[in-house]
C-alpha cells in the first residue's frame, strides 16, 4: 500500500473514531440533561430529604372544659422516640445498628426486625415509638448516653388524658396517635383544638452534624384553642349514675340514652349513652363477653369484628340512632290540636279499646278501652283512640306543618359527628291511616335529640332553640375567642298553647302514667312512651320518658330512652319515669331551684329534725310538735341526751323521734323489715311497726297512688339499725301504661 493510500485510510478511520466519540458524548449530554432537567425535581426532593433534619414540634392541643371550666380532656406531656438512620449509619463504628436495635427493642418492648428495618432506612426521620411516659423516656436517654448513640432523639409530644374516664365519653370523643380527633367534640372541633404544629428544618451532612452555612428555619407551634362545653360535669354525673343503674336493673339489651337540656337556651347540660367506654383506652372493648367472642374468631375475621364492635361501642345513641317515639309524641299531637283550636280540655272522647281508621282497626294499648273520657284524661291515660281522633282533626297538612316546624325532618346541626335525621312519610303517602298512627307516635322515627329539642320548644313558650354542646372557644390565656350564642330557630306554637300544655303534662305526672317521675315541690311535667320495635310481636320495646320542671317555668328538660328492657317491666311509665325522677331530683337540687309545694304536698311534707339534745323533755315536746313530729322517750331522765334521727335529717311529718334521757342507755336496735313489692300503705305500716321512720320516694309520693309498688329500699331488709332510723323506700308504677 502506498504512503498516501495509507494516510487516506488512517484519515477515514479517524473520522470513524471521531464519529463514535460524538455519538457517545451526545448520549452523555442527553443522560445528564435527563437527570438534571427531567428527574431533577424528584432527585432533589430525595436529596433534600436526606440532607435536612425536619423535626416537628407538636402544638399543645386545647383543653375541653365543662361549663364550669372543669377540664374534661387535657393534653399531658409525653415523649416520642425518633431516629435519623443516616446519622446512625455514620455512627456505626461506635454502635452498630444491630446492637442499637437490640438495645432499643428491649427498652421500648418493640419487635427487633421491624425496628432494625427502620433504623437502617435511607431517610433522615423515622418514628420509633410514640407517646412514652417519662420513666421509659429516661431509660432511653440513659441508653443513648451510655452507648454514645447518635441519631436517636426524644421529641416532646402530648398525649390526651381524660380525667373523668368514661364520663361523657360519647360527647367528648377521643384522639388518635397523631393527636387527631376521631370521635365526638374531639373530632368536630379538631381544627380548633389541634392548633398548628411547628417545625425546625436544619441542614445536616452525612455525618449528622450541621452544615457550615446557615440553613435553618423555625416555625413556632400554635397552641390549640380550648373548647368550653355546655355540659355540666355534675349534671352529666347525675344522669350517668341513674342511667347506669337503670341499665343494669332493667337489663337493657341495646343500651340507653339520656339528654338533659336547658330549654331556654338550647344548651345541652348532659348527654350520655350507656354502656359507655373509657376515653383513656377507647380501643378496649368494655363488654367482656364480646371481647371473648372476638378472641375466638378466626384471625382474618377478628379485626373486622373488633372494628364493628368498637364502632357500636362508640355510637352516640342520643344523636346517631333514630327511634319510634311512641306516646311521648302525643305531647306534639296535643300541641298541634290546641294550637289549631280543634280540641279543648273538656271535649269528650270514647275509647272502646280500638278505633277504625280506613280499613284498619287500630287498638288502644289498654285492652277493653278507657271508656268515656275528656281530652285531658285522654292525655293522662295516653289513650290511642283519643289521639287518633285529635290527629284527624288536625289533618295531614297541618300535622306535617308542625312536624317540620318542630325540626323533626331536619338534622338539628349539633356539633357531633354522624347525626341522624329521622324517617318520615313522604307527602304522597301521608294519608288518613298514616296520620292516625303518627298521632300516637308510631310509623316514623326521630332521634332522641330531635325529641328533646321539640319538647324544649313546648316548654320554652313555643320557641324552638338550636340544641348545642359548645359554649365558647378560649385561647390558652382564657380569653374568649368565639362565643356560640343561643340560637332561636322558630316559634312553633304560641306561648298560650305552651302554658296550657305544660299544665296538662304536669297532670300526667301527678295523676297519670307519669307518676313515677313525681317529686314533691318540683312540679315535674312529662309524658311516658313505650314503642314496640319492628317487627312487632317480638316483645322488644323501647321505653322512654321525657319530663321537664318546674312546669310553670321550665328550667330543665330530661329525656331517657331505654332500649330493649329484658327484666320483666317494659313500659315507660314503669321503668323510665323513676330514672328521670332521680336525675331531676339531683339536678333541680344542684341548680338550687326552690321547691314550691302545693297545699296537698305540704300536708305530707318532710321536715328537718330539729335539735333537742340538751333540752328538757317538756321543751323538746313543744319543739317537736312545732315540726309536726311525734316523739318517744327512752329512759327516765329529764333532759334529752341524744336523739334519733339526728338533727337535720329530713323525715316525713308525723315521724317519730326517739329521745334518750339517760346516760349510757343502750340504744334499742331493730331489724329492717322487707318492704319491697308493697303498696305505699303496706310499706308505711311495716316500717312503723318496726319502730322505724319511712321516707317515700318516687311514684309513692304522687297524689295518685293506684298500681304503685315499692322496688328499692335503703337500708336493705334484715339489717340491724337503731330504732327511729329513716328507711327510704322508692316506689314505681307497675300498672301497664304507655
Amino acid at each position, binding site marked *: 500500500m502506498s504512503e498516501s493510500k495509507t494516510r487516506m485510510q*488512517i484519515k477515514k478511520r479517524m473520522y470513524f473514531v471521531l464519529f463514535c466519540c460524538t455519538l457517545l*458524548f451526545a448520549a452523555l449530554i442527553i443522560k445528564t440533561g435527563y437527570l438534571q432537567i427531567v428527574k431533577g425535581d424528584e432527585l432533589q426532593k*430525595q436529596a433534600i430529604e*436526606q440532607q435536612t433534619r425536619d423535626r416537628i414540634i407538636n402544638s399543645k392541643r386545647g383543653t375541653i372544659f365543662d361549663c364550669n371550666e372543669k377540664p374534661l380532656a387535657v393534653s399531658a406531656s409525653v415523649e416520642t422516640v425518633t431516629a435519623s438512620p443516616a446519622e446512625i449509619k455514620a455512627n456505626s463504628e461506635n454502635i452498630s445498628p444491630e446492637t442499637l436495635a437490640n438495645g432499643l427493642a428491649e427498652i421500648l418492648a418493640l419487635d427487633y426486625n421491624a425496628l432494625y428495618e427502620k433504623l437502617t432506612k*435511607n431517610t433522615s426521620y423515622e418514628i420509633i415509638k410514640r407517646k412514652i411516659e417519662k420513666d421509659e423516656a429516661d431509660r432511653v436517654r440513659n441508653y443513648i448516653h451510655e452507648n454514645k448513640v447518635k441519631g436517636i432523639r426524644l421529641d416532646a409530644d402530648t398525649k390526651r388524658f381524660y380525667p373523668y374516664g368514661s364520663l361523657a365519653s360519647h360527647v367528648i370523643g377521643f384522639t388518635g396517635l397523631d393527636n387527631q380527633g376521631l370521635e365526638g367534640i374531639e373530632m368536630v372541633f379538631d381544627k380548633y383544638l389541634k392548633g398548628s404544629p411547628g417545625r425546625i428544618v436544619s441542614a445536616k451532612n452525612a*455525618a449528622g452534624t450541621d452544615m457550615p452555612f446557615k440553613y435553618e428555619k423555625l416555625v413556632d407551634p400554635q397552641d390549640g384553642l380550648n373548647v368550653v362545653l355546655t355540659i355540666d360535669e355534675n349534671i352529666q354525673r347525675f344522669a350517668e349514675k341513674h342511667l347506669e343503674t337503670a341499665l343494669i336493673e332493667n337489663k337493657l339489651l341495646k343500651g340507653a340514652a339520656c339528654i338533659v337540656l336547658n330549654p331556654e337556651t338550647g344548651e345541652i347540660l348532659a348527654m350520655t349513652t350507656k354502656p359507655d367506654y373509657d376515653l383513656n383506652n377507647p380501643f378496649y372493648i368494655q363488654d367482656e363477653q364480646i371481647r371473648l367472642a372476638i378472641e375466638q374468631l378466626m384471625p382474618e375475621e377478628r379485626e373486622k369484628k373488633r372494628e364493628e364492635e368498637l364502632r357500636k361501642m362508640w355510637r352516640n345513641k342520643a344523636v346517631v340512632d333514630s327511634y319510634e317515639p311512641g306516646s311521648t309524641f302525643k305531647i306534639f299531637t296535643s300541641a298541634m290540636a290546641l294550637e289549631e283550636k280543634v280540641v279543648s280540655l273538656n271535649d269528650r272522647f270514647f275509647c272502646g279499646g280500638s278505633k277504625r281508621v280506613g280499613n284498619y282497626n287500630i287498638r288502644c294499648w289498654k285492652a277493653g278501652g278507657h271508656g268515656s273520657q275528656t281530652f285531658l284524661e285522654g292525655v293522662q291515660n295516653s289513650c290511642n283512640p283519643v289521639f287518633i281522633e285529635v290527629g284527624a282533626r288536625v289533618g295531614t297538612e297541618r300535622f306535617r306543618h308542625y312536624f317540620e316546624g318542630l325540626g323533626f325532618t331536619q338534622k338539628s346541626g349539633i356539633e357531633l359527628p354522624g347525626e341522624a335525621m329521622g324517617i318520615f312519610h313522604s307527602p304522597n303517602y301521608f294519608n288518613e291511616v298514616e296520620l292516625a298512627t303518627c298521632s300516637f307516635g308510631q310509623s316514623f322515627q326521630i332521634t332522641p335529640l330531635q325529641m328533646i329539642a321539640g319538647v324544649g320548644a313546648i316548654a320554652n313558650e313555643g320557641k324552638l332553640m338550636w340544641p348545642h354542646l359548645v359554649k365558647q372557644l378560649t385561647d390558652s390565656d382564657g380569653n374568649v375567642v368565639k362565643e356560640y350564642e343561643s340560637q332561636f330557630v322558630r316559634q312553633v306554637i304560641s306561648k298560650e298553647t305552651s302554658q296550657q300544655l305544660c299544665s296538662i303534662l304536669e297532670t300526667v305526672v301527678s295523676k297519670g302514667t307519669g307518676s313515677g317521675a313525681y317529686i314533691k315541690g318540683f312540679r315535674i311535667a312529662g309524658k311516658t312512651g313505650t314503642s314496640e320495635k319492628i317487627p312487632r310481636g317480638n316483645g322488644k320495646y323501647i321505653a322512654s320518658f321525657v319530663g321537664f320542671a318546674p312546669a310553670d317555668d321550665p328550667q330543665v328538660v330530661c329525656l331517657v330512652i331505654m332500649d330493649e328492657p329484658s327484666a320483666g317491666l317494659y313500659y315507660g311509665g314503669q321503668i323510665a319515669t323513676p330514672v328521670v325522677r332521680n336525675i331531676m331530683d339531683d339536678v333541680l337540687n344542684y341548680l338550687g331551684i326552690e321547691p314550691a309545694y302545693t297545699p296537698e304536698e305540704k300536708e305530707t311534707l318532710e321536715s328537718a329534725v330539729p335539735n333537742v339534745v340538751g333540752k328538757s323533755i317538756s321543751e323538746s315536746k313543744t319543739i317537736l310538735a312545732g315540726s309536726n313530729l311525734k316523739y318517744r322517750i327512752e329512759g327516765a331522765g329529764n333532759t334529752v341526751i341524744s336523739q334519733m334521727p339526728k338533727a337535720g335529717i329530713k323525715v316525713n311529718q308525723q315521724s317519730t323521734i326517739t329521745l334518750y334521757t339517760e346516760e349510757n342507755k343502750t340504744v334499742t336496735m331493730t331489724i329492717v323489715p322487707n318492704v319491697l313489692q308493697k303498696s305505699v300503705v303496706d310499706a308505711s305500716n311495716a316500717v312503723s311497726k318496726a319502730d322505724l321512720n319511712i321516707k317515700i320516694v318516687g311514684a309513692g309520693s304522687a297524689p295518685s297512688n293506684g298500681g304503685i309498688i315499692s322496688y328499692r329500699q335503703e337500708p336493705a331488709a334484715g339489717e340491724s339499725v337503731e330504732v327511729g332510723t329513716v328507711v327510704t323506700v322508692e316506689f314505681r308504677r307497675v300498672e301497664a301504661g304507655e
Partner: protein
Amino acid sequence: MKKGQIDFQFFITVMALLALGLIMVFSSSSESARHIFGNAYYFINRQLLWAVISVVAMMALSKFDYHRFGKLSFPILLISGFLLVLVLVVGEEINGGKRWINLGFSTFQPSEAAKISIILFFSYSLSKNPNILKTFWTGLLPYLAVLGIFSGFLMLEPHFSGTVVILGIGVVILFVGGAKILHLAMLGVPAVVGGWILIFTSEYRMKRITAFLDPFKDKLGDGWQIIQSLYAIGSGGIFGLGLGRSRQKFLYIPEPHNDFIFSILCEELGFIGALVTILLFAALIWRGIRIAMNAPDTFGSLLAVGITTLIAVEVIINIAVVTSSMPVTGMPLPFFSYGGTALFAIMCCMGIMLNISRQSVQK
C-alpha cells in the same frame, strides 16, 4: 523539526479544562479536607502545585520534538512493564487494590505510564512497519500479546478501569493504524467472553453490576455511591446551586474531589455547567483528531490519535459511571479529578499533542 505555531484552540481548551478542574477540586474537596485534615486547602494546595509543574512540563514538551520519543518507545514500554510488575510487589494497597507506588513526595500509578507507553510504542512501531497489520499471526497478534500482557498485570492489581482504558487505546490505535476490520471483529468474541468471565468470577464486580441495575435496592450499601451521585446531579437542575454550594459534597459522596467530581460540578453549576464541560472535552477531542489528521507523518497521527483516545475513553467512562449509565468502576475525570501524577501525565500528553500540532502540515 519544522517550527510552527501550536494549535492555539487546543491549548486554550486544555487550559480552560485545567482551570475549571482546579476550581472544582477546591470546591469539592474543601469540606472533606476540613473534615479529615482540619484544613480546607489541603487538597487544592497540592493540586495547584502539581498543576504548575504540569503546565511547565507541557510547555517544555511542546517544544520537544515528538520524533525523539520514537527510539525511546520500546525502552519506555519495557520500563512501564517492569513498573506494572513492581507495583504488585511494593504497591500500596488502597481500597483492595495494589495500584499505587509511593514515591515519597507523592504517589504514582504505573498504569498511567503503561497507557502512555502503549500509545508511544504502538504508534511508533506501526509507523515504521506500515503494512504489518495486514497479517494476523505475525502482524496483529504480537501487538495483541503486548496488550494482553499489560492487561494481565493490570488485572492482577486489580485495576479494571485501567485495563479497559489500555485495551481501548490499543484497539483504537490498531484500528486507525490499519488493522483488518475482520481481525478486530473476531477479537470481539473472546473479548465479550473474557469480560463475562471476569464479571461473573468476581463477587465484587458482580455486586457493582447489580447495584448499577437497581441502585435503590441497597441504598446504604452498594448503591450508596451512585445514588448520592444521582442526588447531586439531579439537585443541580438547569442552573445549579451555585459554585461552592453543593450539599452532596458534605460527606454524602465519598471523596467528592475524586471520581465523582463531575457530580459535584453538575450540582453546583447545573446542566449549563455540565454541558459546557462536556463540550470542552468534545472540543478537545475534535481538535485532537484534527491534529492527528494534520500530523506530518503516520507516527504523529497515531500518537495524537492514541492520546486523544485516552482522554475520550476516560471522560466517557467517568461521566457514564457518575450518571449511572454504566456500572461503577474507579475512573478519574482527566483535568478534574484530584491526583498530581495523573494530572502530570495528562499534561505531558498535552505537551506532546502541542508539539505535533506545531509540526502540522496544512494542505
